[in-house]
């Protein structure tokens, strides 16, 4: 074992390298690592927060969906009721209108019949007068006997 100046030289070298590591290596590396740890921790925390937010949002979306479905169901029900009502109303209206049309038609028919009867009556009266003229051989004074003829027509 030759102990000599190598020991002194190595001591100086040791001090220099330890000092260099202390000043120029360690702080940079350890800071970068701490920063990354921090960043990862924050990332994880925000991921957790996001997943919690997502859960809440899903819950809220589910609620809204359910509410919307209920509303839709209510609307459909309402619409169905309304539709039935409309159909009922339309039916009633149609029936009423039909009645009305039928009544009008009946009235018109009656009027037509009456008119036809009137016309017939007139013609029958004329025929009767013509026939009577023929029988009597002379003309009947239409003006004089018109009252009589009308009564006759009314009886027909």
């Amino acid at each position, binding site marked *: 074992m030759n*102990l000599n100046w*190598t020991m002194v030289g190595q001591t100086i070298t040791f001090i220099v390298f330890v000092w260099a*590591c202390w000043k*120029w290596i360690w702080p940079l590396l350890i800071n970068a690592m701490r920063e*990354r740890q921090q960043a990862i921790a924050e990332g994880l925390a925000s991921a957790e927060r996001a997943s919690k937010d997502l859960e809440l949002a899903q819950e809220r979306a589910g609620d809204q969906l359910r509410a919307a479905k209920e509303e839709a169901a209510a609307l459909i029900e309402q619409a169905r009721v309304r539709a039935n009502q409309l159909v009922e109303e339309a039916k009633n209206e149609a029936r009423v209108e039909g009645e009305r049309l039928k009544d009008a038609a009946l009235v018109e028919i009656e009027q037509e019949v009456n008119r036809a009867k009137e016309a017939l009556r007139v013609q029958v009266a004329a025929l009767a007068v013509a026939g009577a003229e023929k029988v009597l051989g002379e003309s009947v004074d239409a003006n004089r006997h018109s009252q009589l003829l009308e009564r006759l027509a009314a009886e027909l």
Partner: protein
Amino acid sequence: MASAAENPAEYIQHHLTNLTFGQHPDGTWGLAHTAEEAAAMGFNAIHVDSMLWSVVTGLVFFFLFRTAAKKATAGVPGPLQNFVELIVDFIDDTTRTIFNYQNSLIAPMALTIFVWVWLMNFMDLIPVDWIPTLAAMMGVHYMKVVPSTDPNVTMAMAFSVFGLILFFSIKEKGLGGFLGELAFHPFPKWLAPVNLILEGVTLIAKPLSLGLRLFGNMYAGEMIFVLIALLFTGGVAYGLLGGLLQWGWAMFHVLIISLQAFIFAVLTVVYMAQAHEVDEEH
């Protein structure tokens, strides 16, 4: 083999001799040409190879980690940063479990020791003759490439740590507190001399065991590699055996170099923690 002409004893001796620059007994300065000349230089010499390789490995550590540190980003790390952070994180964790005081020096020191000692130990895994043979081609006769097999290197680091133990002990506890700890522990105060001897030995044992453990392990490992390398001179059969043994020992040695580097770093942190520990009882 450096040269087949050497006999085994010379070969081993050659491998265990440092390239020494120093003052010859006649007063002139120069490189020692034999192990005896190197020994004769006494303290006035320096192991050029130990210094060279410890500085080279230290620079490898520094530039590798400095490159990573300069580009260090809190975003997605590159491969180098990943690798470096793995080691930094490992040392940081280890330090924090042992050392619970405010001192920004301890963890970087542990990192430096761990990586640097590992790299110095790693030189042991380079086949023992490669670098010495290259050096011999360039006219350098001795080249011991594993700095941690040089007690100067390991003891220098151990005594630097010892200096920090004393420094932080006195800084944290005060000179009186530190001496009190040595004198009034573990026996009552009236046995202070006994306490001083016991605690003194404990204190001195720290750097000695720290430095000598690393030196001993690496020196023994290097010695075994040298002995295995001797087998390569004994013909094909011994050569094959030597190859197998070298492979096996290298596999095992990977564990040893890492373990020794880790032990050195962790014990340093432990000693620093003890130096910071202010015991209220005494």
